[in-house]
């Protein structure tokens, strides 16, 4: 790999590894950072545009880009070589985020019955509940990846005080639209699920809509602001449709 690809990453990165018999993973770090996430998003978008022969699907996780290929049609070594040349040809850590991103503003009720672990999470972060809500609402977050469940975003980064662990015991079930926190990230649940993340708020926003023309509403790289609303207003939004009062605009 040429030095260009690793100029602004940590030494030794990025690396390309095989995933099973029909995939390669380009990892930009083995720990999450803003630069590594940006690199993964930019690299995947460029790979999609480049249409390397044999590539059937791409995706990203927090700090890596994945390509899947058909091993009966494609020589893995040749694709790996093409991928290495592609990745090495650019400093992905400095690349702009992909085009076509959107900014979402999602009304959220924090604390109380709708966010029963806000107090616990704020205490772990070492701040008051009011400061916790202000901190989250005041941070413009990026969809760093979508995973675990369909359309489900992992959003980051929150300020450093939010580097709190997941809970040891699972919460048996959080509802669709639940806003949860751990390790400087938020997860906005698209299915009702058990979780080790702390449930601090609730939205009426459904990010996975199997019945809709566009079932996956958010894309990796989109940005989100969670705007606090009062309980009474939230009750109105709950019956207002799948957006739950959320609005979006194109990002330049």
């Amino acid at each position, binding site marked *: 790999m040429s030095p260009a690809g690793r100029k602004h990453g940590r030494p030794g990165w990025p690396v390309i*590894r*095989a*995933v*099973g*018999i*029909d*995939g390669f*993973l380009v*990892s930009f*770090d*083995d*720990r*999450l950072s803003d630069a590594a996430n940006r690199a993964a998003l930019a690299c*995947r978008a460029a790979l999609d545009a480049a249409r390397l022969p044999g590539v*059937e*699907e*791409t*995706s*990203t*996780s*927090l*700090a*890596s880009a*994945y390509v*899947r290929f058909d*091993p*009966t049609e494609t020589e*893995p070594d040749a694709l790996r070589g093409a991928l290495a040349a592609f990745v090495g040809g650019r400093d992905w850590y400095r690349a702009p985020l992909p085009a076509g991103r959107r900014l979402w503003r999602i009304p959220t009720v924090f604390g109380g019955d709708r966010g029963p672990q806000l107090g616990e999470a704020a205490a772990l972060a070492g701040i008051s509940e009011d400061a916790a809500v202000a901190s989250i609402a005041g941070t413009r977050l990026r969809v760093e*990846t*979508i*995973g*675990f*469940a*369909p*359309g*489900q975003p992992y959003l980051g980064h929150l300020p450093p005080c939010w580097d709190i662990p997941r809970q040891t015991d699972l919460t048996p079930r959080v509802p669709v639209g639940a806003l949860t926190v751990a390790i400087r990230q938020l997860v906005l649940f*698209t*299915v009702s699920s058990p979780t080790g993340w702390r449930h601090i708020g609730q939205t009426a926003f459904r990010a*996975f809509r*199997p019945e809709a023309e566009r*079932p*996956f509403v958010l894309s*990796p790289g989109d940005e989100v602001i969670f705007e606090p609303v009062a309980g009474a207003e939230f009750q109105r939004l709950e019956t207002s449709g799948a957006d739950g009062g959320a609005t979006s605009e194109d990002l330049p």
Partner: protein
Amino acid sequence: MTAAVTVLEGGPHLTVQDLGRPGYLAFGLSRGGAVDRLALYEGAALLGQSAGLAAIEMAGRGGVFETGADLTIALTGPPMAARLDGAPLRWNASHLWPGGTRLAIGAAVAGGYGYLHVAGGIQTPEWLGSRSVHLAAGIGRSLDAGDSLPVRPGATPIGHGWRLDVAQRVDGGAIRVVPSLQTEDFTPAERDRFADTRFRRDMRGNRMGQRLLPDGTGFASDAGLSVLSEITVPGDIQIAGDGMPYVLLAECQTTGGYPRIGTILPADLPRVAQAGFSAELRFQFVDPDTALGIERAYRADLERLGAGRKRLVTRAEDVPDLLSYNLISGVTAGDPPEGAET
């Protein structure tokens, strides 16, 4: 004209499955589809149709089904006791299912996933190019008694009354794996111990994954539980917090944070998902070139399965079953369907 297969008895273990819905990993949706993809190809070979058509997947046990129209069906996967209005039906074979009769499918003798294929395929609505129910993602739902599934009536171009000698998949054996993203985080000694260990299928398993039980202690890696969540694919052997291996299957999550010691080749995955509870499994690491050769041969074999199709009553050992075939499949009535291959 349409017809239907009605579920008279059955429950959450029955789902409609095809080859799944590739292409949505970026949106957090795994491919899904049949747990035993080979069984879908076998059913397709028996009916002379595309493996992409949807069938009913039966986890552990079948159900009781009824149809109003004459249908041609095939039964694949680990054998289950199947009867048509009381007359036994051979497994890994195709049959005429006359309208108005009842098809009763019992428990899988060795556990695992059985498949009921209908000529023309189950015609439930597609979503993103597939009819597969994805339970983990909440796409579609399992079947209930009273459900009716649309099908196309009529025979296949090759007719019914065929059987297929299938690759065994309930007896365990050597399962070939390639290294995964975290294999190097396991010490060479731990990897050797993994390859020397015998495993059995645990009772705990579903369409997302199958837990395995080693004949010794669990496994540990240097990565511990601090792995950054990363892409996961069916066949990955993840080592959970308790040290036990958990093999990811069709409905696995798209990302996971547990270290993975290896990835099972698609050709061998059915023998893990379908292993009998007493069958012994062991893992054998193979290099990438060997794995590529195995995969290419496997895919070529899938396309050639139809060539192994044989008439149901051509071997001496089939004769004891002759009565039932006379009554229900008509194969011995001297009227091989048009276009039948021999």
